């Protein structure tokens, strides 16, 4: 089950938009980071079940943060939430092994679809163990 969600995005507005798309009745524990560097630190401290990751960020961008997190935890479930929808950017993140990509601006319907898919993936993994 998803209990803990980490949101890594330099924009406080983007974080607010994403949080508003999450169902309120699930009692998710949320943690936020404003750049890739802080995101990696928070990932280690918070150990999320799901991480939402922006790509264009100061200090350490999303591509670098995805690589770093996947080196720390090869099973990390990372969903990229980005405005950069260029083909090359999409293929870079998919090759990096992210779970899915959400296009900004966030829409509740798509965020909730992702949550259902992540739940299913976690069940599948737990069943395989």
């Amino acid at each position, binding site marked *: 089950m998803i209990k803990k969600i980490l949101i890594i995005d*330099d*924009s*406080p*507005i*983007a974080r*607010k*938009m994403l949080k*508003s*798309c999450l169902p309120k009745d699930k009692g998710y524990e949320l943690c936020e980071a404003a750049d890739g560097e802080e995101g990696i630190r928070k990932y280690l401290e918070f150990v999320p079940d799901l991480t939402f990751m922006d790509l*264009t*960020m*100061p200090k350490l961008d999303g591509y670098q943060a995805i690589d770093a997190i996947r080196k720390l935890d090869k099973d990390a479930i990372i969903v990229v939430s*980005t*405005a*950069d*929808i*260029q*083909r*090359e*950017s999409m293929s870079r993140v998919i090759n990096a092994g992210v779970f899915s990509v959400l296009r*900004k*601006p*966030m829409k509740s319907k798509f965020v909730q679809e992702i949550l259902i898919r992540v739940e299913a993936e976690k069940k599948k993994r737990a069943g395989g163990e």
Partner: protein
Amino acid sequence: MGDEHEYIFSDEEKDILQEIMNIAFGSASADLGDVIDIYVELSTPDIQVLDVGDIPSYLIERMHFRQKETSIVAQNFWGDFKGSGILVLPNKAGRNLITVLDDDQAGLDTEPIAGQEREVLMEVGNILIGACVGKVCELLETFVTYTPPRVIHDSGNEYDSFVKSFDPSQAAIIMETVFKFQKVDINGLLFIFTNQEAIEWLRKALHNFMESYE
């Protein structure tokens, strides 16, 4: 620079506008990539409120940030959201971009090189400015009409008259994105600025945009 206008927009309103510009420029870059085979490295946009009278010196300072001589593509737009889009590229950009466009637009070969450069700059400017302003309008639920794009080189009188064309009595909101065309190693700047007439509308539109996320 523009201290009395600093509080026209709250920090939250600037943050909303920054995120909207981020989404709009990401979308515009993807549109450009559909037309020509190019990848745009993006950065986080910056939002500033300035006196219109300070725009010329601001542009000069920002344009010379990375290169001495620049080419500018300017396009005005009208509607609830009213202002100008300005794409700033180094002078060599048009020539370098021709090599990228060459496969797609073989007809350019028949034109003199200066004409080709102008065409390429106008094409790229038209796509980036149009798609970016268009996406801002889509998100803020309005529409605008555009003037045709025009290319201005900073080495002549046209540049001087361009920077003197701003009405210094008003405030302007500048949305700025620094980017890099990776394939041809060109850095550029995209500014969208809107003047005082559109500011009240813009503030309301930003709040309406965020309402569905409250």
